[in-house]
């Protein structure tokens, strides 16, 4: 247990060394999004730097998923600017948008594995239009499966996987294009504490190995502690607080501290 903590700390430190505060990868300014009378996001501002893990905390229904869905334009934002790798997402044409999307990995809350395909086919799906030979694809798939610790799962169907395995395969699928940005929607929700910790460590590994910038949505404080370089707390559609784990845990604000109890 203790040794594990040290390991996590070690990976954590090595990551902190990689992250570059000067280069902004994602820049969200004054983002607003409403559904009818339901004002979910109001004037939201978030920046993510190269190689940085930003954790977004917030109660359920506070608009965390809406936030990252606006970032890949699964939802159209009402107001504000969203710059990803220097591209203004809100005004891109569809084909340009798809190019930017290739640089963004999105791990859905349910992992969103394609039910009718085997694990191998799931992993191959993002490579469809990549002009790669079959051998190259096979190698990438095997690497992907090994990196999430499931080298033998290739021929299984998603229905045969446990919740933790689904998340891992989902992660492997999103990582297969080696995206510059990763978005994780509640990666540990619904998993037991041990599996949650393993997933958190995988997230950290992704950051260290591939210098990925990530937004991690969660209300699992342990996951936030392990993965975050910086934490943003959402309340009433705004970023209510921002800081490192250690800063926020000592916050004056009772509401913010309540997350950490």
């Amino acid at each position, binding site marked *: 247990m203790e040794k594990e903590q040290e390991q996590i700390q070690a990976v954590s430190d090595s990551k902190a060394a990689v992250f570059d505060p000067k280069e902004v990868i994602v820049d969200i300014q004054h983002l607003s999004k409403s*559904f009818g009378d339901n004002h979910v996001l109001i004037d939201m501002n978030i920046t993510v730097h190269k190689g940085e893990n930003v954790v977004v905390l917030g109660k359920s229904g506070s608009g965390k998923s809406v936030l990252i869905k606006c970032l890949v334009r699964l939802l159209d934002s009402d107001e504000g600017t969203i710059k990803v790798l220097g591209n203004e997402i809100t005004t891109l044409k569809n084909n340009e948008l798809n190019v930017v999307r290739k640089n963004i990995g*999105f791990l859905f809350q349910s992992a969103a594995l394609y039910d*009718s395909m085997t694990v191998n086919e799931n992993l191959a799906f993002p490579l469809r239009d990549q002009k790669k030979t079959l051998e190259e694809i096979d190698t990438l798939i095997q690497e992907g499966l090994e990196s999430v610790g499931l080298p033998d799962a290739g021929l299984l169907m998603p229905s045969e996987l446990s919740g933790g395995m689904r998340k891992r395969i989902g992660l492997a699928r999103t990582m297969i294009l080696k995206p510059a940005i990763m978005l994780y929607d509640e990666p540990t929700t619904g998993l037991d504490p041990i599996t949650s910790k393993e997933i958190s460590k995988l997230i950290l590994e992704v950051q260290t190995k591939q210098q990925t910038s990530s937004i991690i949505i969660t209300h699992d404080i342990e996951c936030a502690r392990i993965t975050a370089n910086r934490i943003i707390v959402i309340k009433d559609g705004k970023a209510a607080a921002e800081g490192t784990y250690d800063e926020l845990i000592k916050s004056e604000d009772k509401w913010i501290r309540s997350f950490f109890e």
Partner: protein
Amino acid sequence: MSESKLATLPAKSPDSNVFIFSSGKFGEFFKEIGEITRFAGNFFKSMVIPPYEFKELMKQCYLIGNKSLSLVAITGFIMGLVLTIQTRPTLARFGAESWIPGMIAVSIIREIGPVITALICAGKVGSGIGAELASMKVTEQIDAMEVSGTNPFKYIVVTRILATTMMIPVLVIFADFVALIGGYLGVNILGDVGFRFYFTQVFNQLDYSDLLPACGKTILFGFSIGLVSCYKGYNANKGTEGVGLSANAAVVLSSLCIFIIDAVAVQLTSILLPK
């Protein structure tokens, strides 16, 4: 219509129900027809713009044909058999037993074969597509596809609508054939009719004015099954409940479409191709 779309509409003003057609069930009905028409428009647009998903189309054709083949064969066979056994006494009373093959041929090819087979496929294929797409929607698989840079409408919807449009006619032709064989056995339960004689009689009674309209309407049946089922699945509401509802609505609505298309087709045929 999906809840998310409803939620984005502006709130209804209180006097909007001055227009009878825009409120209540009636209004919903027309709104839905409008939505389906737009969905169909998107289908035709996406169908012609490359890239084309040939591999997925072939896979869907195979699945649809393969899944329904035995079911269609059994129903077709029984259809032919029962029709023969039922009509024999009536025709026998007029001493017109030799007309049985021709009568069976005309009724099966023109009407019963296409409609019954399409209804069976609406149940089997339509519910399958409705449930599959709805669960893909609910579990964010469609979103995942979109984010990975694949157009989900093209990959999922266009391929399925094309597959039903192509495969339902094939299944109908197969069912017609099996039904005629069933009819042959039915004729031979009480009589003794040669295989050759039977089929000569069958083909003597059929001409292009029977075959062409039948073909035309089966293509429309196939298209409507695919379109309606995909529409219902693709616009499923959130939650697992939405999956069952979509599958159900897909079957009900596509069966209804089949009857409506049939009624219109029969009228058109009798106007355009009078016997």
